[in-house]
């Protein structure tokens, strides 16, 4: 019937075709490209700029009382302060409303002008202002005292953006695995394409592998773009080994892919898969330390938070990127992700349905 058989090369094999068509389909959906590649960048930029580290602000001090004694205290030489003069009532009002950090009053006692502090016990800036002015005054009285030398910390790896980028990588790997794999499979099932594929000699292995490989290609692109941009713009770096970083990304990606596969193993409706996805992802968004440290949650939640896969991924990414730790020190996190992968993948393959 056909005098012209189709030449088989590896590009016309099932796996290559499954990967190729998924990639092509993806690039033809502009909104998918936006969510996968531009949204994380947008998030990194807006949060990175909003929480940019600023040098500590000057402390605001209100001076009350005899101005001659103020001059004697040599306040012009005290750095890190902004001074203003007010009447006692006005100054205390400002302190109460938090507009100034402390009030320094010069009071006549035994015929001499003595300093007196008014502070707000609920604000740490207030105590800080008192302590630093006290030191300043102490140096004035004892000229032989020398300040203890001080070195400022290198902020690399400690800024908010350094904390944020590994967290964003983590949620992108999670979203990619769950939506990219789980949703994609349910979509195939709802459209009866999964059943249509089952009616061909195609192997389940090729289908799942095809989805996984195309997912890894998208993810690699995502990681490169997010990391490259945050390096160029914010100077975010990987302080540990790049190899270790890649191992974590692959392990994390595989872990969420398995969870996505499990979520999609039987769902036959978009609504039900949406529901399960949100149920799985929302707790991790909140508890796994994406935007702020998970250590802020009550102590008793810690054991549960620590075994969430996203916590393990975020923590280990931060350890490698910011602290330069090696994988050998991250055994717990690697074990958590490995276990989640093994259990969910095993269940998913057992429960998987074509229809």
């Amino acid at each position, binding site marked *: *019937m*056909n005098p*012209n*058989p*189709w030449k088989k090369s590896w590009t*016309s*094999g*099932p796996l*290559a*075709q*499954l990967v190729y*068509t998924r990639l*092509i*389909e993806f690039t*033809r*959906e502009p909104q998918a490209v936006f969510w996968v590649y531009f949204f994380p960048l947008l998030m990194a930029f807006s949060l990175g700029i909003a929480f940019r580290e600023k040098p500590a602000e000057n402390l605001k001090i209100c001076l009350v009382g005899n101005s001659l004694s103020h001059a004697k205290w040599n306040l012009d030489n005290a750095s890190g302060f902004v001074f203003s003069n007010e009447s006692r009532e006005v100054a205390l009002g400002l302190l109460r409303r938090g507009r100034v950090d402390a009030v320094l009053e010069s009071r006549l006692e035994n015929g001499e002008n003595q300093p007196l502090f008014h502070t707000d016990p609920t604000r740490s800036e207030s105590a800080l202002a008192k302590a630093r002015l006290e030191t300043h005054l102490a140096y004035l009285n004892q000229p032989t005292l020398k300040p203890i030398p001080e070195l400022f910390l290198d902020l690399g790896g400690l800024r908010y953006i350094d904390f944020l980028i590994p967290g964003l990588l983590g949620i992108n790997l999670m979203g990619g695995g769950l939506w990219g794999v789980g949703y994609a499979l349910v979509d195939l099932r709802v*459209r*009866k*394409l999964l*059943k*249509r*594929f*089952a*009616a*061909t*000699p*195609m192997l389940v292995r090729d289908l799942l592998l095809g989805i996984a490989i195309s997912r890894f290609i998208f993810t690699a692109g995502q990681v490169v773009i997010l990391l490259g941009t945050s390096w160029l713009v914010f100077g975010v770096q990987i302080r540990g080994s790049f190899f270790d970083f890649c191992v974590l990304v692959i392990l994390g990606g595989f872990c969420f892919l398995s969870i996505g596969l499990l979520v999609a193993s039987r769902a036959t409706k978009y609504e039900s898969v949406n529901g399960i996805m949100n149920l799985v992802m929302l707790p991790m968004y909140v508890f796994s330390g994406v935007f702020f440290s998970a250590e802020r949650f009550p102590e008793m939640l810690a054991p549960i938070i620590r075994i969430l896969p996203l916590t393990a991924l975020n923590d280990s990414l931060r350890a490698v990127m910011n602290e330069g730790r090696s994988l050998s020190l991250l055994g717990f996190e690697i074990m958590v992700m490995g276990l989640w992968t093994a259990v969910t993948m095993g269940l998913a393959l057992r429960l998987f349905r*074509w*229809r």
Partner: protein
Amino acid sequence: MYINPMNAAIECNNLTKTYPGKPPVEAVKGISLQIRRGECFGILGPNGAGKTTTLELMEGLLIPTSGSVKVLGKTWQKDGGWLREKTGISLQETKLSEELTVLETIRLFASFYEDSAHPQDIISQVSLESKSSSLIGKLSGGQKQRVALACALVGKPELLFLDEPTTGLDPQSRRQVWEMIQKFQAGGGTILITTHYMDEAEKLCGELAIVDQGKIIAQGSPGHLIKEFGGQTRIEVDFLEPGPDPDWILPHAEISQLCEVGPNRFLLQTSSLIDSLPKVLAAATSAGQSIQTIRTHQPTLEDVFVGLTGRHLRDEVAGP
């Protein structure tokens, strides 16, 4: 009808399928069939009759509750891989990826088969050369159905399963699909097709099984079924003016039944239109009656179905 098992493309015995649930649905209640190689076999029945379920049991996509299926002499359990290479399937509802072109889709399906046709050849076989690089999402319903057909044909199947391939298509698209099915059969292929269109069944199928409520209620060639179950041909005669009692026609025209349906309109039934019609005309002339119009209605598969079940094939046709 007995078919030598060597020649049977499909053979199934006492197939049943009950979908679990509350309550369970007995979709197929004991179907036995033999389908000859090279034949176009039709399963005709109304919506919900169990056509899709029967087809999917034979396609190895559903596991029967009881009964056995043999396709090309093999079973799905033992030789599933081999059978997938030899069969092509078009499901009742598949949404192919809208963002892929026709060629990309066919190439994807071709990649699954050990021995596949050249994608370009298949595209020209379903006359979509001009749409080869169009996205599936931009095609008409008829064109999409032809792509689905192409996906079924790309593995060079011996046996084609088609589930309502023309439902919802315009008449021209339906004719195009029919032509492709006939071309496949002319090339030696076997086809199992389900439909709820009697004209489609009559046009394509050499052998038909009429199913209703999960059972085969009649089987045979369309001609045989119509002859057996379709009832008689009806002749409706309108006279110009009210005449005498029309009983005078009876002795002349081999009319089996006659009834008056209007002041000057009569409905006659006959087993042989060719014999009766000239006699009715002659009798009218000799009785001095002038005929205004004559309508005849030959039985169709629709009548076969109505005759067998008292219901119409399609829900939307309100039955008397």
